[in-house]
């Protein structure tokens, strides 16, 4: 009874909340207020590496209008570290513990030390100024390769290397010796800031049942468990209510404001509100990991890849966070979407006294894509071969084995993607001046969707019909702005044959909606979409069977459309959905269903050499750009951009394009301008005046081409697109700059300054 013909899925339907968004009606996390609310602010470290010699909060406490001033002594269980698979045993969980509030030592500029709550935001700020602190500076280490040296200052325990993953396949030494060409290079990628428009924010209160409610902007509603652990209270007494998120991109995946809010609210028994300032978002929050990548790639003279060897070093900052997972992701994806018989990869994530790094759209996939796709173009040049042809000879095919010995389970439409991407660039633009050079580049990528399979990911959803034939979906998945609720609304409406606007989706409330997991890892559609599909199919089956009774026909022949159940064989056999619902109600048959979707499950990884499946599936795509380089200033303008992605099946065309365009824009920022800079751990890009993100003048009109292999593991064959949309943008730009002016771009972002000096070097040689 799998539904085949669609009325809603695959259309450009409007979403469930856009109208309220353009009317200014949405109550975002910072907009919510309760009577008697206090305002919370965090006092943070002004040193990157120091002991706290003295901390005096007496004057802050004494200030009129200040309700609480809390230090580590007031935090019942003062840690937020989680056991992350892949952390090296030398440091281990216990020693790399991250505190909610620092005890005697600070390890990065911006580490939280004291949290205050006061009657007004101004008073909270005044209280921070009355806190007295004395530091004794400790030697710091700010370069991950320096931090790997035996005599480097240690951030925690005895070893700064907190994760190490490897790939071993075949014999690279022998293969390089037998290769006709070998290319080698060292690449560097920037520390990218998420720069979502909505700062981390929320409101917490203790209700009349003694439950802490936290209404805030988060990608992970399951953080109620962390809050409960910190406060030492049952998980059932913490309720997290997610809001419509004003952007996140992984930035609202780790803990943000929830623990601070809960601590202050629990202590004062009053509602407490807080929002990070833009500057605090800079120095108080994790970023994308900067990487050093050393790649060596070999091929035969007819363009077959023979071997790849890589060393990956990521700067994890002062705490572990999700660094081991990000590194695992980089390691598995380091080969690119290519079958390579001999692979040797060694990857390290290293603690420093820099700002922490963790999840960011792409999750370790972007850094390696810059390297592996730059390598492919370098090989093409050395072989004097068309870069499209070179790649086509090496793309994975469905069923091929990756370097972690996992079979590719779905279609790989990269031949089509690369052809369409290059073709869609159209005729080459003329340079706009005599110092201008136009060039083109493209890059192909693979990016998994869904969490690592050893995490045993599940998602639940509840679907119920109302007496009038409308429906309610309850599903815990937060809405990140990508239309997560809209996708599950479309799936339920399609399967139940009712109009979109008669389906209401309630999401992201830890005590009201069945838990569906995080809106991360490009898993929302895959997991919560499948869970909603299962639940909606259960309800559909009940309806069709009851209707079959009523119509005296077989349920297999029935479908539902526009609230009418009808037979596809006999046109006279039909009955209104509402009548079937009433019959079910009269007979006491439930027309509600809660179901759970389980992703692929594998065993925990036991060794640092990855030899087993880790992911559910991958999304494959190509991005192509045309750039113009000003040879006098080094400024690079992107003139054209094309993204071609096999999304398996597009649930909503507009939203799929939106992901592709938005991801590409962030990828172009990563390529050309974005880098959160620190000098000895002290930030110098404080806000959006100094940290540049692309504006409407930096991003060209983009052409998004959607391919649909219908071979994915998501609902109706969908794959994920949230993260895959960003991955290939940067190497496409790097390859285009090389095409335009003949310089190698090895260090991102390709700022005017870097491009200018590379041009000077080329000119001199």
């Amino acid at each position, binding site marked *: 009874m799998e539904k085949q013909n669609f009325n809603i899925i695959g259309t*450009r339907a*409007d*979403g469930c*909340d*856009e*109208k309220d*968004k*353009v*009317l*200014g*009606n*949405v*109550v*975002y996390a*910072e*907009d919510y207020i309760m009577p008697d609310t206090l305002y919370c602010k965090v006092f943070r470290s002004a040193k990157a590496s120091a002991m706290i010699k003295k901390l005096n909060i007496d004057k802050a406490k004494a200030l009129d209008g200040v309700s609480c001033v809390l230090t580590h002594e007031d935090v019942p269980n003062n840690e937020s570290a989680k056991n992350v698979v892949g952390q090296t045993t030398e440091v281990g969980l216990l020693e790399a513990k991250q505190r909610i509030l620092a005890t005697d030592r600070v390890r990065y500029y911006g580490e939280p030390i004291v949290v205050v709550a006061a009657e007004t935001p101004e008073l909270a700020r005044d209280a921070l100024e009355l806190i007295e602190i004395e530091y004794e500076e400790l030697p710091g280490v700010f370069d991950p390769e320096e931090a790997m040296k035996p005599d480097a200052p240690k951030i925690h325990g005895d070893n700064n290397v907190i994760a190490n993953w490897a790939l071993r396949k075949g014999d690279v030494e022998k293969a390089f010796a037998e290769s006709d060409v070998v290319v080698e290079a060292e690449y560097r990628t920037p520390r990218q800031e*998420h*720069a*979502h*428009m*909505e*700062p981390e924010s929320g409101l917490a209160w203790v209700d009349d049942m003694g439950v802490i409610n936290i209404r805030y902007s988060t990608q992970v509603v399951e953080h109620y468990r962390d809050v409960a652990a910190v406060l030492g209270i049952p998980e059932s007494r913490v309720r997290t209510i997610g809001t*419509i*998120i*004003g*952007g996140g*991109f992984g930035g609202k995946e780790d803990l943000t404001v929830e623990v601070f809010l809960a601590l202050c609210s629990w202590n004062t028994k009053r509602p407490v509100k807080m*929002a990070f*300032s*833009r500057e605090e978002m800079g120095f108080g929050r994790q970023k994308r990991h900067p990487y050093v990548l050393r790649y060596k790639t070999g091929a035969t003279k007819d363009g077959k890849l023979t071997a790849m060897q890589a060393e990956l070093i990521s700067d994890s900052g002062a705490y572990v966070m999700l660094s081991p997972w990000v590194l695992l992701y980089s390691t598995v994806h380091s080969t690119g979407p290519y079958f390579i018989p001999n692979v040797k990869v060694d990857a390290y994530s290293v603690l420093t006294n820099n700002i922490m790094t963790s999840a960011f759209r792409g999750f370790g996939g972007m850094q390696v894509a810059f390297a592996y796709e730059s390598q492919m173009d370098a090989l093409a040049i050395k072989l004097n071969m068309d870069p499209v042809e070179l790649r086509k000879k090496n793309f994975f095919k469905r069923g091929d084995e990756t370097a972690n010995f996992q079979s590719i389970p779905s279609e790989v439409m990269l031949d089509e993607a690369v052809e369409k991407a290059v073709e869609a660039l159209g005729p080459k633009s003329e340079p706009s001046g005599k110092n201008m050079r136009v060039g083109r580049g493209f890059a192909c990528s693979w990016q998994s969707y869904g969490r690592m399979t050893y995490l045993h990911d599940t998602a639940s959803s509840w679907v119920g019909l109302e007496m009038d034939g409308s429906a309610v979906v309850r599903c815990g998945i937060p809405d*990140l*702005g*990508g*239309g997560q609720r809209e996708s599950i609304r479309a799936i339920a409406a399609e399967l139940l044959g009712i109009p979109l606007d008669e389906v209401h989706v309630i999401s992201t409330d830890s005590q009201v909606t069945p838990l569906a997991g995080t809106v991360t890892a490009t898993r929302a559609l895959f997991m919560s979409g499948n869970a909603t599909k299962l639940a909606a199919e259960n309800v559909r089956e009940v309806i069709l069977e009851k209707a079959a009774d009523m119509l005296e026909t077989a349920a297999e022949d029935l479908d539902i459309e526009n609230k009418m159940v009808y037979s596809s064989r006999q046109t006279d056999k039909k009955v209104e959905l509402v009548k079937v619902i009433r019959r079910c109600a009269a007979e006491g048959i439930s027309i509600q269903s809660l179901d759970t979707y389980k992703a692929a499950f594998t065993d925990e990884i036991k060794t640092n050499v990855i030899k087993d499946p880790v992911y559910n599936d991958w999304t494959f795509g190509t991005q192509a750009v045309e750039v113009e380089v000003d040879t006098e200033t080094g400024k690079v303008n992107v003139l054209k951009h094309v993204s071609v992605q096999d999304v398996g099946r597009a649930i909503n065309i*507009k*939203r799929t*394009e*939106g992901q592709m*365009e*938005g*991801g*590409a*824009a*962030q990828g172009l920022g990563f390529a050309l301008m974005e880098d959160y800079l620190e000098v000895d751990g002290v930030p110098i890009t404080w*806000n*959006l*005046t100094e940290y540049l*993100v*692309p*504006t*409407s*003048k930096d*991003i060209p*009109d*983009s052409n998004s081409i959607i391919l649909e292999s219908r071979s994915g593991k998501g609902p109706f064959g969908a794959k994920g697109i949230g993260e895959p949309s960003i991955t290939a943008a940067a190497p496409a730009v790097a390859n285009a700059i090389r095409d335009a002016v003949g310089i190698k771009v090895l260090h991102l972002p390709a700022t005017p300054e870097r491009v200018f000096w590379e041009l000077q070097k080329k000119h001199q040689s």
Partner: protein
Amino acid sequence: MENQLYELTVYVNDKAVRGKVRAEKTLLDFLREHNFTEVKKGCDNGDCGACTVIMDGLAALSCSTTALQAEGRRVYTVKSLGSWEKLHPLQEAFVKHEAVQCGFCSPGFLMTAKALLDNNPMPSRNEIRDAISGNLCRCTGYVKIVDAIEDAASAIEEVSREA
């Protein structure tokens, strides 16, 4: 910090809003404290444009304007544009073109676009890109926002031609 409070009246969406503020209070905080939370605080530093309102016919960053500078003046937020029953053509186009993802930047973009079309009814795509270059969007990549403003300009033009 000076603690003196100043009385003021700002005409927000054609209604008088009275308050007492410190001299340094921004128009953004003044508006948000008076429940105009549709005006968004993205950076509080004049960089992102999320707080854009229209003051005396021009787009203004309410985070970089003091409340006292708005004394006696007319300020319009996104709520002045349209209603649930009848969206403004710009709002309609933003929905139709999916120029909205997370929606946090949308009130600012809509006010910048409104000010643009009030002053230049049929802008080119380049003029649109110039006009909105002070508004940051991290979700859409801007393409659909430019599409929406272009489409809204045509729709408004068509209506005025018929009238």
